C-alpha cells in the first residue's frame, strides 16, 4: 500500500445476511459463487425471501443448490441489465449482496446506486484473485487484472505506478507514469 487511509475504496467484507432487510438480492460472478451459495443457505435458513443472479460458469458444481427462479446470465453485462430490471420492481427494504472480482462488484454497485440504493444497502465481498483495474491518467486506457504495483499501460505503454486512489466512477485505480523524470522517451506522447 502506498498511502494509508484511502477512503475512496469500497469496503469489502465477507457477506452475511442483514436481518433488518425485508428482501435480499444476491449476485455473484466467478469465485463469488461460493459466497452466493453460503448466503442463500443462510437466507433459506432464516426463511427470508431472496433473489439470485449469477454469471454462469460451466465448471460451477452446485447450481442445483440455488433456489428456484435463480437467474443464470451469460455475461456481467447481461447480469447488470437483469439486476436493473429486478430492482426496478422491488420496494424499499432491499439489501443487495455482491460477490466476485472488484470490477464486477463495482458494476453491480453502480446498478444498485442508480436504482436508489445507498452504500449501507449494498454489501460486497471480493472473491478470487485480488487483481486491480488500472486507469491510465495520461491516455485514459484501462488495464485489467493488474496485481503488481508497476504495470505497462495497455493503451500507451507507459510504465504506470498503481496508486491506491480508487475512482468509484471509473471503478479503477489511478495509474500515473512511474518514470516520467527519468525515461528517455515517452512512448505515448505525440510530439
Amino acid at each position: 500500500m502506498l498511502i494509508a487511509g484511502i477512503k475512496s475504496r469500497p469496503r469489502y467484507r465477507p457477506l452475511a445476511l442483514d436481518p433488518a432487510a425485508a428482501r435480499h438480492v444476491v449476485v455473484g460472478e466467478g469465485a463469488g459463487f461460493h459466497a452466493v451459495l453460503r448466503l442463500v443457505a443462510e437466507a433459506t435458513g432464516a426463511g427470508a425471501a431472496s433473489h439470485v443472479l449469477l454469471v454462469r460458469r460451466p465448471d460451477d458444481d452446485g447450481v442445483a443448490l440455488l433456489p428456484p427462479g435463480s437467474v443464470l446470465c451469460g455475461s456481467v453485462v447481461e447480469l447488470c441489465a437483469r439486476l436493473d430490471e429486478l430492482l426496478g420492481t422491488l420496494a424499499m427494504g432491499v439489501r443487495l449482496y455482491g460477490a466476485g472480482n472488484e470490477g464486477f462488484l463495482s458494476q453491480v454497485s453502480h446498478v444498485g446506486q442508480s436504482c436508489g440504493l445507498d452504500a449501507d444497502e449494498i454489501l460486497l465481498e471480493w472473491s478470487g484473485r485480488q487483481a486491480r483495474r488500472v486507469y491510465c491518467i495520461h491516455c485514459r486506457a484501462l488495464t485489467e487484472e493488474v496485481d503488481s504495483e508497476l504495470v505497462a499501460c495497455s493503451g500507451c505503454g507507459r510504465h504506470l505506478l498503481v496508486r491506491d486512489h480508487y475512482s468509484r466512477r471509473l471503478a479503477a485505480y489511478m495509474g500515473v507514469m512511474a518514470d516520467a523524470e527519468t525515461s528517455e522517451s515517452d512512448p505515448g506522447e505525440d510530439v
Partner: protein
Amino acid sequence: MSFDQAIDVRVTDIEAVTPLIKRFTFEALNGDALPAFSGGAHIVVEMSDGERIHRNPYSLIGSPWDNGRYRIAVRRSEGGRGGSRYMHEKVAPGARLRISPPVNLFPLIKTRNKHVLIAGGVGITPFFAHLAELRAMDVPHELHYAVRSREHAAFADELAGMIGDRLRLYCSEEGQRIDFGALLARQPLGTDVYVCGPEGMVEATFAAARAAGWPESHVHAEQFASPPSGEPFEAVLANSGITVQVGAETSLLEAIEAAGVDAPCLCRGGVCGQCALDVIECEGELVHHDHYLSPEERKSNTKLMPCVSRARGGRVVLAL
C-alpha cells in the same frame, strides 16, 4: 446561536390561518434582501417579553426563491412557556423583532428518487419550502398530512393548490389515520421519508420503516422540543466562574444567557447538538429531553444539552 449575527426585521403581515395558527411575514428593517435558505430551514425568533427573553425556532414556510421576506407559522400553545402566546397576543403588524439567520437541520436529500413527507398538525411547516423545491426539481413526492379536524386543516387548501392529488389529508375526528406500515411497505427503491409532527407520529414512522427493512439513512425527522419545565436547580459554570440559578420555567440555556455567558447553540430545540456541554460533576441526576445524545452518552452522565435538558436534585458543574 449567540445573537451577534441577528437580523432586525419588521412584521409586515399577520394572518390567522386556523383558530390556533397564525402566519407572520417578516421583512428586513433596512430593506435588504434576507439570507438565502433551503427547504427545511428554520430561524430563531427573539421576543423581549418584559423581563423575559424568548428565543423560539420556527421553520421558514415561504418559497426558498423569495429572499425579500420570510414567513413562519406559529401555533399558539396554552401550556407552553409563553413564546407562542407572545407572538399571538403582543406582536402586531409593524412590530420589530430580531431573528437569527436561517439554519437547516432538515434538508431534502436531493439525490433520491422519491420523497414521502409525513406531517402532523403544525409539523406541516418545514414541508412548505420542501414542496417548493420538490416541484422545481420535478421528482416524485407525496405529502401525508394528519390534522385534528377540517377546521384545523386550513393549510390543506393551499397545499392542494400547490401539489394537487399528491396531498393526502387525514382528519382524526373523521377517523382517518395514516397507515404507516402500508405506506412504507410499498415505496420504490431510493425513497426517503421525512416526518415532522408529534412524538408518536415520529416513532410510528421509524418503527414502520424499520419493519419494512429501510435503513435509517432514508428516514429523517424534525423534532424540535420546547424546553420542558422542571425543578429549580443550580448550575456552576466552571470556566466562567459563575453560578446560575435555573428556575422551574426557565431552560438552563436561557439562564446561562441571562447571566451574560455566551453559550454555543443553534436550534434551541434539542436537535442539532451544538450546545452539548461537558458535565464535570452532578450531585443529583440529569434529565435529558433532547433528540441528539446517544443512549450511551445519556447514561454516562457526562453530556448535557442545556437548551432542553435539566438537572434534578442538586447542583451540576459544567465545563463552560
